[in-house]
């Protein structure tokens, strides 16, 4: 077998790996919550018609015709738009609960795609991340455990079901794509370490996105410069995490770099910087569910047993704290 054929066989093997479904189910639950956040915030603001109904029927602009799987549903009338919105919202609940299997996921995906593609002015990267996640959840079924389907079929909420790991791998790829190209887009003097580094300062001085007044930002300007540099470096070189994951996946093979990357788990550093970035954005600015969707994709960086262990640790911590802060018996006189 020549090296090309061997390489291809390894490549095919990689995408054929199977693993317990727990981590993938957590990803599904996270995406379901983000979908609900995205849709309920529109509903509660009374913006469904504004965003998606054609100007002829009460919207603010001429939207593209509604289309699902190349089937033309005609102009965006309020009844049709609201119908699609309602079905998609129910679908999002199904994704969250793991009900309805792939069909529910597919319906949710098509409904969300249909709505978000008819008015390009109001969509963002979070929508693309959500629809890409729904494709993965549809093609790589995530309802095997932690789901209503599991409960109905086995009588328990969890099972030992397995799932293809390729969905999780593609989740990591998607995350890396988002970051790397965000970094490339930021390659200008506002963000690069050899530039002015005033990117983050300018973001925080724009009142449009802020949750609260940040008048103090000019007084910590050097810190915002450090933040700008860290953001650009993290995003532009986020592809390194693919190398880290590959070297950890092939830990049995020789090599100095492999040994180093298996000794120190750089995923934790990636998680720490990325989570700080997104939680910082989420705490100071209202830019929608982008940070939460991105953080959900971080689940894909870890094997199901690692995700499961992390949840067990969190559970033990919360349970212990509850015990510690529980009701205290009155002292006997």
């Amino acid at each position, binding site marked *: 077998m020549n090296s090309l054929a061997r390489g291809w066989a390894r490549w095919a093997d990689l995408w054929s790996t199977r693993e317990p479904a727990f981590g993938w189910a957590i990803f599904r639950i996270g995406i379901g919550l983000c979908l609900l956040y995205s849709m309920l915030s529109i509903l509660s603001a009374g913006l469904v018609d504004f965003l998606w109904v054609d100007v002829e029927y009460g919207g603010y602009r001429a939207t593209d015709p509604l289309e699902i799987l190349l089937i033309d549903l005609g102009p965006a009338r309020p009844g049709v738009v609201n119908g699609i919105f309602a079905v998609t919202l129910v679908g999002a609940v199904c994704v969250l609960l793991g009900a309805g299997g792939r069909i529910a996921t597919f319906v949710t995906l098509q409904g969300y795609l249909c709505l978000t593609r008819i008015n390009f002015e109001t969509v963002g990267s979070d929508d693309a991340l959500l629809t890409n996640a729904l494709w993965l959840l549809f093609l790589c079924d995530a309802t095997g455990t932690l789901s209503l389907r599991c409960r109905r079929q086995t009588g328990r909420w969890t099972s030992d079901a397995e799932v293809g790991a390729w969905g999780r791998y593609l989740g990591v790829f998607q995350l890396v794509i988002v970051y790397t190209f965000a970094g490339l887009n930021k390659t200008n003097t506002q963000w690069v370490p050899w530039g002015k580094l005033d990117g983050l300062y300018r973001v925080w001085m724009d*009142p449009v996105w802020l949750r609260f007044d940040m008048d103090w930002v000019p007084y910590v300007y050097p810190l915002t410069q450090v933040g700008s540099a860290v953001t650009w470096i993290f995003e532009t070189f986020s592809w390194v995490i693919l190398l880290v994951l590959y070297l950890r996946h092939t830990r049995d093979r020789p090599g100095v770099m492999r040994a180093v990357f298996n000794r120190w788990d750089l995923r934790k550093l990636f998680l720490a910087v990325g989570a700080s970035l997104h939680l910082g954005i989420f705490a100071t600015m209202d830019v929608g569910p982008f940070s939460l969707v991105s953080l959900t994709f971080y689940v894909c960086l870890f094997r199901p047993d690692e995700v499961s262990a992390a949840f067990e640790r969190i559970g033990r911590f919360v349970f212990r704290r509850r015990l510690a802060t529980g009701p205290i018996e009155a002292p006997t006189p």
Partner: protein
Amino acid sequence: MAHLRAALISLHILAVLILTLPSSRQMLRREVWDRSSNQAAFAALADTFSWLGFESTEDFDRWLWGVATRYVHVRDTISEPLVVYADLAGVRQGWAMFSRPRERPIQLQVDVASSLRYQPIYQTGSREHDFRSRTFRQYRFRKLTGRLARHFDPVWYDPWSRWIARQAADGYPDAKRVRVRLYRHQTLPAEAVRAGEVPKGRFSDRRLYAAGELR
């Protein structure tokens, strides 16, 4: 099956990678290149090249323009067959937000008048004037406001401002007139803010409506 899966995934990865490569029609507009902010950025880039030891040609701008136009051409050519897949499946991806934070932030202001004088009812970021703030502060609405203001075109701006005016006319039954406008100010450097300077801005893109016609 394993080989088919690997092949399909490979094609998907390739398509997403190519389609995510930055490309914008703005890159091919000479007037965008000639903007003072972009010219300053190019000058800084030329300095960086020199600092790194590359010989910076005298006409760096022309060289960069040639690279950019060739890049956009190649990118568009190789991505053309993949566009159908991306459009059908909706698998495009990007995150251009904050790539070039605005130097002149934009705020929305809505005023109504029941007599001669206008009273503000909504201002971006104001707790005092927060009419329909749940709607106007929703992140998609703010995103839209920013996009409309940045790429100003009355074709899109006018129906949007009219929709806002209609909300104001409905919310203030006594109002006779509604005014929708944008406030733009230059973000001051940190040292200027620390020295006590206050950013100066101006209103623009004002639209006036008779409230009765909106109801």
